[in-house]
Each structure stands twice: as structure tokens, then as C-alpha cells.
């Protein structure tokens, strides 16, 4: 009888821990969630309607702080961008593809300061252009996110040069 109560107690504790982790996610999980949203909104299926495309364009902009700085080995891409610019560039870039899939790997999250998160990750963009060309680009990124009004926003994205020609 005692064992029965003990088992029920253990199961309840496990359920409680799982529920607490789901209802109150850690800051690391909240940061990662922003990346998964970015991945979801950048990705595009061949059947995507114009309405969904417009909504995703708008949504992408909401993930960024104003202005957001991009640092890249390609000088012409580096600079500060507003949310509207990010949404517009994302929309233009997405329009060249019939299919896109942004995959994120090896996310390492650090909190160097309060309400600042530094994330190192590998991003892979796989897709097919409207002319039928296959695209497969991989980059290592260092991202800086800042917390405002209990939400995390991208404030800086740096493209790391893994191979330097």
C-alpha cells in the first residue's frame, strides 16, 4: 500500500516538473523560441498563398529590435536596418524562391549581462529558386538578443567567416 502511494507521489512530482517547465519556460527556452519562430517565418512552401506571405513578412520584422545591426564579411550587406527594412528585404528575398527551409543547428545560448543573450549557431538555408536552381547555404552566426517588455529581440547578427578566401 505504501509503495502504491510512493509511486503515485513520484508520478505527480514528475508531472508537476513537466508542467512547470512548460508553463514557465527558462530564459534559454524563450530565446530559442525566437529562433524557431524566425525559422518558421523565413521558410516557405511551394503552396504558400499571398496572404500568408504578407503575414510572414510582417511577422519577421517583429522579431528584431530597431535598429538591428548586421555584420557580414560581405561589406555591402553590413549595416543597421529598421524593422520595415528587414521585412521588406525578407519579402524580396523570399519572392525569388518557390521553396525555402531555414534549419538551425547547435544553438549555444549565453547570458553575458542581465537581459542580454548571446547565441552562437549554425544556420542552413535550403531551397529552390523560381528558375529551378537549388540553393544550399550554411553560415555560422553570432547573434545578440535583448529583452524588452518580457520579450527577446534580435539586436545584432554577425556572420562568422569560417573559410576566408
Amino acid at each position: 500500500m505504501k509503495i502504491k502511494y510512493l509511486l503515485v507521489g513520484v508520478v505527480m512530482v514528475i508531472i508537476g516538473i513537466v508542467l512547470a517547465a512548460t508553463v514557465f519556460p527558462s530564459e534559454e527556452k524563450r530565446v530559442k523560441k525566437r529562433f524557431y519562430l524566425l525559422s518558421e517565418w523565413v521558410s516557405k512552401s511551394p503552396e504558400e498563398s499571398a496572404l500568408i506571405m504578407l503575414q510572414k513578412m510582417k511577422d519577421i520584422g517583429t522579431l528584431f529590435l530597431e535598429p538591428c545591426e548586421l555584420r557580414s564579411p560581405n561589406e555591402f550587406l553590413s549595416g543597421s536596418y529598421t524593422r520595415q527594412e528587414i521585412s521588406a528585404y525578407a519579402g524580396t528575398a523570399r519572392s525569388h524562391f518557390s521553396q525555402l527551409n531555414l534549419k538551425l543547428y547547435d544553438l549555444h545560448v549565453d547570458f553575458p549581462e542581465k537581459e542580454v543573450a548571446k547565441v552562437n549557431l549554425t544556420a542552413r538555408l535550403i531551397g529552390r529558386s523560381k528558375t529551378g536552381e537549388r540553393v544550399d547555404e550554411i553560415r555560422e552566426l553570432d547573434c545578440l538578443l535583448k529583452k524588452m517588455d518580457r520579450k527577446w529581440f534580435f539586436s545584432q547578427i554577425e556572420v562568422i567567416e569560417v573559410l576566408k578566401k
Partner: protein
Amino acid sequence: MFLIRVFLVSLFAYLFFGFLCIPFTTQGISMEPTYPDGGVNFCWRLRYLFSEPKRHDVVTVRFAGSRVMLLKRVVAREGEQVEFRAGRLYVNGKEIEEPYVRFPCNWSLPTRGVEKDCVYVVGDNRSMPIEGHHFGQTSKSRIIGAPLW
């Protein structure tokens, strides 16, 4: 007893294939014909535990972690000068024989020095324009192993 054995075998497999001998599939054509697109291999993490990558070695270069890696060949080491002339590789002004390069290549790249603690890596397939091939100098700390075969 049986469950303990299963647990131990699972633990060993997890550690061995997760950290020491990582399975991977080749995606892309940059190392063809040596490593064809879709081929299966393992990244042996202990390959450079007591030695340094040498010229002509095929190595795996990591990005942020080991989930995505580049498979490339070392063509020059730190302090050396690399150059491509009419598709031929020159290191320190001397032409290097590359039997693994099977496809015609017309690359030209001005001389550049390989920095300290770095190696210069290139794929075996140089049939595409030079702009379309991912190659160059990388830190030795990014080399996490070599393919098993």
C-alpha cells in the same frame, strides 16, 4: 542483468557515435569524385589528437557545433603561400601535384599567405566557377577530425 547489459551497450553506443566517431552523410558535390554526394561516412574525432593536419589530408571543419561540418582537403599550412594559376595549385611558388582532382579547372587566385594556427582547405571538385566553391583559410581549432575512409 539483461537490462543492465542493454543499458551499458546503449551508453557505449551513445558516447562512441555521439562524440568519438560521428556518423554523417555527404551533402553536396564539392568533394567529388573522392566523396560523392549522399555517401555515408564517420568523423573520427581522435585523428588529430597527437598530430597536426598535413597537406592532402581530408578533414572535417566545424561550424557552431558538430551537427553540420564541411569536408575539405588541406592544401597548405601556416606560413605557406597559396595560389591558383590556370587551375593548378601552387604553394610557395611550387606546383603541387593533386591526383585527387579529376575534373577540369581554370581557377585563378592571387597569392595569399596562410596565417598562424590556420590551414588552407579546398574541395576536390573544382569544376565550378571559383566564386561558387566554398574554400579558404580556417583556424586549426575548427578541424574536429577526419573521415574514417
